[in-house]
């Protein structure tokens, strides 16, 4: 893997090389170099199998982290390629022309994070969240609890109790009443 990375460094901006375990290494690159790098890895380095594409929302830093994982069938090793893109109007170059199934992952990211991949087939169609009417739910500003409260009304008669208040009422109520 070290020689592969050495090769890559000659052609691309590669940083944050981390060997997670023997058969899995992560590298980072710039947003605009991702697709050329994927193509190079597929055609020149033997990483012919696309495993997955996923995202992490680093809301504090204002970026999404994209991770593409490729597999080298002969060497039986995985390589993760990371890149950061801005959260505002998040858009990424599509890689569906390299592997057909990438389109499905990109469609999922559009729905879950709101990351657009212009030109990717069916990218705007609903994927998993049929009838979704809120912001993409994997964005960290999505308030899952509020959504749940608003959407799935509580079962009738069910009421929560704050342990602290409840113990006050049960164990030392007189004191409590007086404080009021």
């Amino acid at each position, binding site marked *: 893997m070290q020689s592969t990375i050495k090769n890559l460094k000659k052609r691309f901006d590669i940083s944050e090389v981390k060997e997670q375990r023997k058969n899995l290494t992560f590298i980072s690159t710039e947003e605009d170099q991702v697709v050329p790098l994927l193509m190079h890895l597929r055609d020149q380095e033997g990483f012919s199998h696309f495993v997955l594409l996923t995202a992490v929302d680093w809301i504090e830093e204002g970026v999404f982290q994209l991770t593409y994982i490729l597999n080298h069938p002969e060497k039986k090793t995985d390589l993760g390629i990371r890149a950061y893109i801005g959260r505002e109007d998040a858009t990424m170059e599509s890689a569906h022309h390299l592997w057909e199934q990438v389109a499905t992952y990109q469609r999922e990211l559009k729905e879950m994070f709101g990351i657009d991949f212009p030109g990717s087939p069916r990218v705007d169609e609903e994927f998993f969240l049929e009838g979704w009417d809120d912001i993409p739910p994997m964005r960290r500003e999505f308030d899952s609890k509020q959504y749940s409260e608003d959407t799935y009304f509580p079962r009738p008669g069910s009421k*929560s*109790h*704050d342990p*602290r208040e409840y*113990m006050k009422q049960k164990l*030392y109520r007189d*004191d409590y009443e007086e404080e009021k």
Partner: protein
Amino acid sequence: MSKLKDILSPFTAWNNLARDPVTIKDPINDRPGAPRYRGFHQNDLEKCIGCGACESICETGAIRMVPVDGEETKEGDSGLRPEVDYGRCCFCALCVDICSTGSLTLSNEYIWVDEDPEAFTFVPGVDKKSWDDNEEGWKRPEPDYELNIKERVTMPELSAEERENSFVEIVKGYSREQAIAEADRCIDCGLCQATCPAHMDIPDYIRAVREENLEEGFRIMYKTNPLPEVCGRICTHKCEDVCAMGHRGDPIAIRWLKRYIADSVGEEYYQEALKQENPQDKDKKVAIVGAGPTGLSAAYYLALMGYSIKIFEAQPRAGGMMRYGIPEYRLPYEALDADIDYILSLGVDIQYNTRVGKDVTLEQLHEEYDSVLVGTGLHAGRSTRIPGTDHKHVYQAVELLREFSKGNEIPVSDKIVVIGGGNVAMDITRTLARLQRQKYGKVQITTTSLETEDIMPADQEEIDEAREEKVNLQPGWGPQKIEIENDRIKGLHVQRCLSVFDENGRFNPKFDESQTDFFEGDMAVEAIGQGMDISYISKPMREELDFTERGRLRVNDYFQSKQEWLFMGGDIIQGPDVIHGIANGHKAARGIDKYLRGELRYEE
């Protein structure tokens, strides 16, 4: 050749006929989830303490804490249990990962059909389910994965070498960073509050530390406790015993956080932070006997209500046991004085060197004042009454501690035996050890108790620190006789103590006479407990009071005695410790207020 291979190769698949199938034999009924599958909830009701961490972390509001039959609300357990609404649950398992006791898990069962939609809201462990005993499913992967911080921030302390020669305070106190880090561990469940005798708003002042709003934290503490510098150092911290974090790690250092707030505010800013005064708008007068925790606490709350108060104190300074019992290395006088000075600054009058029953009678106080509160504490040392205890070099721990606190010299021989296993025994042992080191350059002190170490009443840290200071601790021995030769003490004979309490929990020690030992010493100190001295209550008055079957004074919930003008609290009623005294004083203050407004009767 290659053609033949093409023809034969499909038949290689026949090899598989001999292999075990990887498919499930009965896919309709038998479809187990993976061993770590996140299926339906399980809850071990015995372990669950109803802290509500699962509800707080739930991302979908699927968990509600509800009372259930058979789970009692008691100290350390709210009696509530989580109810899960599967219309909302997303099976993320954060509730399992945050669970403070580890009671909540997910089974690997994931198939459940029911026509009744209400069935999908249930209380795991209470509403019996087929998966309750499933071993497999999502458990917190230990020890690598932890959302809670299990270890408390270490308190910086003087090392044994630095402290064993002096009375400088041992515990140094948290820095800002340390306090915030420790406060951050709190999950804000509030189980501590019910256990604290004063019911301090603990989660609120811990939050104040976290948010660096220390003046607010200070005000929160004074709502229920006007002695935070004291309690921040020597409180028996029963709150920490029930802390939810204590089930799988260290309890939150509640006491040290309290101290951090009080130390940070600084005595000169108390008035600025609290903005309080005695409105002096009531024409009623209250006398308080004893300036210990009970008296001071009551004085503070009564002063804020506008009463004029006068405390009568037998000693030359205020504080009671806090000053005359607890050594300086645990509670420095400056810290104690900071709390006391503030209370006295609210216009509380105090008359020192005045012993009620001798210099002034209770009857006189009754005549001059509208109400009287006595909080005289336990100052009379008890004796083992074993042969030899009448020797002049057998002393009472409380008396030595009191004299030493007054600045008087106390007897220190080069070999000492102390009898007792409580905190007073540790206090006198460690005080004498320091004096021995100063006088003789070495420590030769043996401290022996009936109790074995696991049941010794002293705080564990006291025991550990005593040992670090090179005290010879000998738990589990019953004192038999003090050996005296030519009018000089030679030492203490002991025999092995097998048990201290009988099956009814009564004090009834059993000994093994065949196992004996002898501890050398030329002076002995008894520290086996203190009794009350209520000789100031005259005989006719005593006949007008209620006593319990075991001879203790009986008071109502407001610490009012049968003589309705007379209130009693602190160690003579409950405890013994500082925080009970403070709580009693607070409650008695409210009782006195009610009584003086004509709203409180004793009622048997």
